[in-house]
C-alpha cells in the first residue's frame, strides 16, 4: 500500500505503524459528567465499517507524523491523508 503523506508525498505503508480508529483523537473530558462511561466508550467501542474508515497511522520510519488516513476497507483505496494534528485542532482540541 502507498500512503499519500501530506508533507512527504506517497510513502510505502511499511514505513508506518497502525493504531486504529481516528476516533481515538476525541479523548473525553476527565471532568465531564459520566466521564467513566465516556472513557469506556472511547477506549472500547469501535465501528467496524465495510467501506470508508478514518484511521490513525504513525510514520515511525519517517518523520514521526501521526496521520489520519481515510481508507476504503473493502478495496484498500485511500481517499486521502491529513496530519492528525490538523484534524485534532479542527475537532476542537488545543492544549
Amino acid at each position, binding site marked *: 500500500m502507498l500512503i499519500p503523506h501530506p508533507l512527504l508525498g506517497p510513502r510505502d505503508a511499511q514505513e508506518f505503524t497502525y493504531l486504529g480508529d481516528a476516533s481515538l483523537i476525541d479523548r473525553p473530558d476527565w471532568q465531564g459528567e459520566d466521564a467513566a462511561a465516556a472513557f469506556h466508550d472511547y477506549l472500547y467501542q469501535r465501528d467496524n465499517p465495510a467501506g470508508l474508515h478514518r484511521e490513525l497511522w504513525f510514520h515511525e520510519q519517517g518523520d514521526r507524523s501521526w496521520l489520519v488516513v481515510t481508507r476504503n476497507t473493502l478495496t484498500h483505496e485511500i481517499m486521502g491523508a491529513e496530519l*492528525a*494534528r490538523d484534524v485534532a485542532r479542527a475537532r476542537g482540541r488545543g492544549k
Partner: protein
Amino acid sequence: MTQMNRISGGLIDRSKTVNFSFDGARYQGHAGDTLASALLANGVRLMGRSFKYHRPRGPISAGSEEPNALVELRGGARREPNTRATVAELFEGLDATSQNRWPSLGFDLLAVNDMLSPFFAAGFYYKTFMWPKAFWEKLYEPIIRRAAGLGSLSGEVDPDLYDKGFRHCDLLIIGAGPAGLAAALTAGRAGADVILADEDFRMGGRLLAETFSLGDAGGSDWADGVLAELASLPNVRLMTRTTVLGAFDHGIYGALERNADHLPVAPAGKPRQTLWRIYARRALLCAGATERPIAFRNNDRPGIMMAGALRAYANRWAAVPGREAVIFTNNDDGHRTAQDLAAAGLRIAAVVDSRKEAPRSGDYPIHAGAVVIDAVGRKGLHSVDVRRSNGEVSRIPCTTLGVSGGWNPNVHLTCHQRGRPEWDAGLAAFVPGGVLPPGMTVAGAAQGILSTAGALASGAAGAVAALDALGRKAKPADLPRAEDAPVSLTPLWHVPGKGRAWIDPQNDVTVKDVKLAHKEGYVSVEHLKRYTTLGMATDQGKTANVTGLAVMAQVSGKSIPETGTTIFRPPYTPVPIAAFAGRSAGKDFRPVRLTPSHKWAAEQGAVFVEVGMWLRAQWFPRPGETHWRQSVDREVLATRKSVGICDVTTLGKIDVQGTDAAEFLNRVYVNAFGKLAVGKVRYGLMLREDGMAMDDGTTARLAEDHFVMTTTTANAVGVFRHLEFCRQCLWPDMDVQLISTTEAWAQYSVAGPNARKLLQKIVDPGHDISNEAFPYMACGDITVCGGLRARLFRISFSGELAYEIAVPTRYGDGLIRAMVKAGQEFDAVVYGTEALGVMRIEKGHPAGNELNGTTTALNLGMGGMVSKKKDCIGNTLSEREGLNRDDALNLVGFRPVQAGDPLAAGSHFIRKGAEAVAANDEGYLTSVAYSPHLQSMIGLGFLAAGKSRLGEVLRAVNPVEGAETLVEVVSPHFVDPEGERLRV
C-alpha cells in the same frame, strides 16, 4: 548418448553443447534448451512420479504451468526441490534427479498405490484414517507423508545470496509475447518509463514457438528486431527471467527475477534471485493463455502433452517426444500442431477431431467426430485407442499424442484484488471480468484475443490507453501483417467411459473424483477443490481448474457460469522462501544493537543476553568461577560492600523540551511533575488509558523547559510512539518537542558505598558532588576526565548510594575504562543484568515482570501516586470499581519458610489446606532471585490483599513441575527498607 529425438531447426545454439545429468545418466543438450527439451531430445519421456499413485509421468507443457515434470536440481546445500523441468534453463554440469520414487524412477515400489486406487479416492484422508484417533499423529500421517510427496529439502543452510529491490515506472508490461512487445514499442517510442517483464529466459512468448510470419519476417526474427530497438531506448527496462507474481494494492507489483538460476553458481557477491517491488502507475497484463487438456482414460501417459507444447518443443527447441504423432483436438488450433510436426518430418498417424466438421488441414488421416478413449504404454506411450464417429474402435501406434481442449486466458493477476473472471461462451473459457486491480488493463490472449494480429493490435491499443490515462499522447506502433484466424472450437472436457481420466495430474484428481464429490453433496467449487485437492500444489491448477469446474457443471446439470468460477491468489508461480527473506538471513535476520562499551565488555569475557534488540552483559565470569551464580553473587556482594559499575545505556532516553514540557509530563505520568525543581529527578509511573501500568522510569529536569525521560529498555519504542500520539493527536497546541536520545548517550550506573569516592576521581574539580551539594535525586551537567561534557543523576535502582553518569556515545568505551581504573583502589566490580536484577528484587523495585500489562498502580503499591487533582492518561479508568476492590492484588515479598527451599517464578499462591485449583488461586510469584545478602531465595509477587497479610504462610504451587514451596509473606523491601543508604 546421441540426441535421438533432436530434429532440425529451432532456436537453440547448436554451436554450444551443454553436458548435464539426470538420475545419474549423462546427456548433452544445447544452449537455449530447457531441462525438459534436452531430455526429450535425448529420448527421455519419463521425468517424474505422481503425488499420490506414483504413476509414471512426463511433461505435458513447455512452460511454468507444468504439473508433472518436477525435479530436484543441483546437490548438497544448493539442492532445489520441485523445480519444473520445463522452465529450468540448461547449464553446463546441471545435475537433476527425479522425485517421489523409490528405489528408482523406472521401478517405483510405491506404484502399488496405483493398484490400491479405489482406497485413495477423493477425501480418502478424511474417510480412511478416522479411527482410532491416536493413530493419526503417530502412524497414519508419517506413512502418508512418506508415500505422497514431492521433493525434499537439503536441510542445510542455503549458501546463496538473495536480494530485494524497488523499481518505479509509468507502465509495467507483464509478458513479452506479441501483445507485450507491441505495447512496449508503442509506450517506449512515446518516451514513457516502461518495464517489460517476462518469466522466460528469452522474450517473444508464443512467437518463439510458432512458425507464423509477421510481415516478411519469421515471428522470432520480428521479436528480436523489436527487442533490439527496445534495448536501445533509455526509458525502457527489459527484465527477462522475471515473473510478476502478484498485483498488490495501489499499483504495487511483486516480481521474482532469477538472476543466476541459469548458472551453476551465482557470481561471487551477486544474488541468485531478486524479489522486486515494482511501483507502476499503470500496468498492462499480456500474460498470454494456457492450453487445457481433454480428459480420457490414461491420459497421463508419458509422451502425451498439450498440442501447443508439442509444437513449441518442435519449433523452438527442435525436440520431440517421438517420431509418430497423433493429435486429439476439439478446435482448429490442434491442427496447427499437426501441420508443424508434419513439416518438421514427423509422421502424423492421425488427427482425431471430436467435432463433426474437421478442417482438411493436411495430408494425413483426419478422423472427424472421433475421440481418443485410452492410451497404452505405462512408462511411455506406444499407442492410443480411438473411437470413430461410427463407433468403431481402432488402436493407432504412436509415440506422442498432442491434446488440445482449447486455451484459457491467463487471468490470474486480474483476480488478485477480488476480480472475478467472466465466462466467454465463444471461447469456452474465462476472460478477465469487469473489475480489475486499479490501473491494470489486459491485452492479447490474456484478454481472450487469441490471434496474433489481434494480440499485436490490442497490445498497442492497451499502451495508448494506459499512457492516455497518465496524460501522455502516444500513437500505436506500426504493426506487421500477421495470422488472424478466428477461434473455432466445440467444447469437450472429458471423454466418458471406464477407467480413470486425469484432470489434475499433479494432485492425481480424476473425473471420477469430481463425480464422487458431487455425489457426496459438494456444491461449491471452493469446497470441491479442497475436498479433492484439485488445483493445489506447485502449479495451482493452471491446466486443471477450468476442466474440473466444467466436469462439475456437467455432472450437476448446470451451466459453467452457474456452477461458479475459479479465482487465483498470488504468487503466480512458486517463490522460494529465501527470496522473501532476501538479505534478512543469518545474523541479519535479527540485527542486534550494541552499546558503546560492548567491545570492552567482550574483552572482559562478559556473557551476553538479548534484551529487545540489544545485547547486554549478563554477568562477568572471573577465573575459577564455574557457575553463573558464583559470578552474580560476587558482583552483588561487592557492589553492596564497596562499588559496582553497570552499563545502563540501553534504557530509553527521550528528550522533552518546550514551554509546556512540564504540563505534558503531568498528563502522561500519574504523578505530578509541574513543581519538580530544576536540577532534580523524579520517578514517574505511566499508565495506559485503560488504567494498566505501561512503563516507568525517572525524569530529570535540566532546565525550566527541558526534561530528560528514561524508559525501560523493552518499552522505549512504544513509549515514544505513545508520547507522539499524545502530543500530536490529543494536545496539538502544546509547545512540546520530543526526540529519542537513546543512542546519543552512553550511560553507566555507579552504585555502592564508595560510589561517590570513585566518581570524585573522574568528575572534574569544580563540580561539587558531595551529599550536601548533590543530594539524592539531584541531577546536573558536569564535565569529567578533563573537560568532557557529561550528565550526572543521583538515582538508584540497587538501593545503594548510586549515580548514573552519561557521556556522548563515542566516549562510552573510554569512560568505562577510566572508571574501572579509578575503582581499582575500592575493589570495584562491573556487574551485569543478573546482578542488577538481584539487587532490584532485594530492594523491591518492580520491573518488566511486574509491569506486565495486567497490573495497576494500586497492584504495584503505587496507588497513592495517582494524582486525583489533574488529568492524566489512564487516570479516569484506573478508578473503575473492579480495579479497586479490597482484595485487589498487592505487590509483596516472599521468602521460603525453609531457607534452603527453591522458589519458581510463575508459581501461584494457595492457602494451606486448600486444593491447588484455579478457584483457590490468590496470586502469583513474578520475580525470584537468590539473595546473597540474605542467603536465601527471595521473591516478589502479587497477592490478594497482600499488604495486610505480612507474616502469613502460603503455598507457592508450581503445577508445571509438580513442586510447591511454603513461603512467608514479607515486605518487598528486603534490603534497607528505610532507604537510608540512598541518602548518605
